[in-house]
């Protein structure tokens, strides 16, 4: 056996101590004095969320954006993707260590990381990965395996394939002998509530290829309403809870640590231009001009929102200034007059919103107040929008959409899809801009505000560093002693 300690220079006690510490397996070095900031292993992280996820199965992916975002958070505990996005929005290796594509971006080859195992002990092989991705990508793609790679073929160019594979449901999974799904991620499922409500227990994957997570266990309670979550974090009954934008400020005032992402959600009014009352584009434009977006962002959302004239927030597009978000009541009234409408004969419209979303209700009410000022009478009506049923027919529909990626084209595709708009080909910045501009210019979609995603954290939670586009990264979170004073982090 080779002895490293024997040949250390004399007098380097500190270094010797470090090597001895490594031999003993200690995580920290007595000489470096870094122990106080090194993460601690162990503990149970108690997490609460509003949504209920029926199954941790990428094949059963919700269509409703909020549920899909919740499913992505839960599945990321168990599964990994081929590629990931770093903080700068650049693609980085995950289960694939390299990739290449042909000149037309129709054929993509991903070389897989060697030595990775699923939590049931079976190896991650190219055929297993190909089978999983084929089920998720569908018949539009042909996924095959080679000796150390998977190859994804498409009939049409797919330059956005990396962006697609780095987000959403494109997790690599393995179907075990008992038909349960296993992944290569930092945790494995120990308990899953049969009815969809109750607690799910995840335990650390000791042999995770990216390193064992710091906490031993995650206790995830689903189906908890936001008020209960706020109480839980205040009374020390949870470590991580979701905070609606409108409650972030209040939580911080109560001493709760809060953390927010960049703006990743969009509230927008979708106008059904086929309805007689809003067929005239000038009426739709007057609606857009009458809405006071700043008061929605500052008052209803307590400054956790930003007025939106475009679909993409500026941190994703860089050109949000091309879509002004200011209101102009005189101009709105003028347009109504020109369209032949008289203020003495109010236009009756119906505005639907998601009845389960308290913030949507408040925003819908504010829109109704704004439109009343220009002579448009809006009947606000709450509807169930669970993604299963067809969206209800209405003149106006308030939609909450979410972006799960910082890639402009991919994020815009997500938004257009959830707003019922077709996504055109988008490769160049001008094409992305044109695709974003089309529904706004036609006033079929009226953007209102971009909103952050926020969490409340207990004093024990350390290294909370989720992606700036929302979600969480619980594998890198660890639990320390209570830090005393609250304060906001990060």
């Amino acid at each position, binding site marked *: 056996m080779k002895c490293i300690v024997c040949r250390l220079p004399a007098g380097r006690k500190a270094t010797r101590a470090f090597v001895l510490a490594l031999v003993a397996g*200690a995580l920290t*070095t007595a000489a*470096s*004095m870094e122990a106080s900031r090194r993460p601690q292993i162990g503990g149970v992280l108690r997490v609460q969320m509003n949504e209920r996820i029926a199954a941790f199965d990428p094949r059963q992916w919700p269509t409703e954006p909020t549920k899909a975002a919740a499913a992505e958070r839960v599945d990321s505990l168990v599964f990994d993707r081929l590629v990931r996005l770093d903080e*700068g929005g*650049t693609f980085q290796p995950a289960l694939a260590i390299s990739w290449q594509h042909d000149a037309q971006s129709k054929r993509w080859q991903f070389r897989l990381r060697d*030595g990775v195992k699923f939590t049931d002990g079976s190896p991650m092989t190219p055929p297993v990965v190909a089978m999983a991705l084929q089920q998720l990508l569908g018949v539009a793609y042909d996924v095959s395996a080679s000796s150390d790679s998977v190859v994804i073929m498409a009939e049409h160019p797919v330059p956005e394939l990396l962006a697609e594979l780095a987000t959403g449901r494109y997790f690599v999974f393995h179907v075990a002998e008992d038909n349960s799904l296993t992944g290569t991620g930092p945790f494995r499922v120990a308990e899953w509530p049969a009815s969809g409500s109750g607690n799910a227990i995840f335990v650390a994957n000791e042999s995770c290829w990216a390193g064992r997570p710091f906490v031993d266990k995650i206790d995830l309670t689903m189906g908890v309403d936001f008020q209960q979550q706020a109480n839980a974090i205040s009374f020390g009954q949870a470590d991580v809870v979701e905070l609606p934008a409108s409650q972030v400020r209040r939580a911080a005032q109560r001493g709760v640590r809060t953390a927010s992402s960049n703006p990743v959600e969009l509230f927008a009014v979708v106008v059904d231009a086929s309805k007689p009352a809003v067929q005239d584009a000038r009426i739709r434009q007057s609606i857009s001009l009458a809405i006071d977006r700043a008061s929605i962002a500052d008052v209803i959302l307590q400054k956790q929102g930003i007025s939106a004239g475009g679909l993409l927030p500026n941190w994703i597009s*860089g*050109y949000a200034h*091309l879509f002004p978000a200011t209101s102009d009541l005189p101009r709105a009234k003028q347009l109504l007059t020109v369209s032949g409408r008289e203020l003495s004969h109010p236009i009756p419209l119906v505005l639907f919103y998601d009845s389960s979303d308290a913030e949507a209700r408040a925003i819908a009410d504010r829109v109704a107040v704004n439109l009343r000022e220009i002579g448009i009478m809006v009947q606000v009506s709450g509807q169930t929008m669970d993604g299963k049923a067809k969206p209800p027919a209405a003149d106006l529909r308030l939609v909450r959409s979410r972006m799960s990626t910082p890639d402009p084209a991919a994020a815009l595709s997500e938004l257009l899809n959830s707003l019922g708009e077709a996504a055109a080909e988008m490769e160049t910045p001008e094409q992305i801009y044109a695709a974003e501009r089309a529904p706004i210019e036609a006033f079929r979609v009226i953007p209102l505000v971009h909103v952050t995603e926020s969490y409340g954290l207990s004093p024990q939670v350390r290294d909370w560093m989720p992606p700036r586009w929302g979600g969480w990264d619980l594998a890198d979170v660890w639990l320390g002693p209570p830090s005393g004073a609250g304060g906001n982090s990060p």
Partner: protein
Amino acid sequence: MGEADGEPSKALITLSENLGNYVWTAEIQQGDTSQVVITTAPRPSQNRVATDEMLVTLNGLKLWAGHDRILDVTFVFLSNFEQRMVLLLGDGLIITKPEKDAAFRKTEFPSPRALQRDPIGDLRQVGHQVNSIVDGRECDVDVDSGALIGCFVWPGPVDRSTVEVAGADLPSYGDQVRNLLLNCGVRDAVLGAGTGDDTQSDWVQALKGKVAVSNTLNFPGPVLKFSQGPDTQFVSAIVRNLKDGNYEVYRLSTSCGP
């Protein structure tokens, strides 16, 4: 401003940015028609260290920025006495000239085993070899050729318990310290850094006891580790840039006077 077909034209040019790029937009209006031109260019990594003036001047020079996690850094001498910077990654070594944007070569370690999520690494030069340890695995690399000489894995399971150790009595100045030789009439000075929170940006300052004796260097993220070579003329700091997620290496040095 221009004029074509009798219609005056107007262009509004804006320089903005998104997550990965600078974004240049031009809105060109001519009569009733308008056109938008958008051009993007990748944003360079941040490379700015703010300084104030004090008794001793602490200087920071960024030598490296990259996506891969850097576990340790050291400076070695080749047979021809040229200096090289060696970076320890989880899966190999990078040897490069100690200059920003210099060419580099990477020596990969064979089939790395699963690392801890927060691995510890250590580097040192032993003769003409660089000796590295990552989570209990030791590898030797020839510094002149960059060739891998061999690797050795320490037997036995890894104990994940945390060892709390006594640190310097500098609780209000962070928790990472290194002895720092100063030739400016200041003895027993140390470098202090950090808030102890890896979600926050750090600063570094030379301290004598609890008294600051230098300016403050502000970094774009937490200082993950200080490394010090055989001499104590300078210290290296490994920083994780919170803006872009890159791992950066700074060489810190001191000079006398403000």
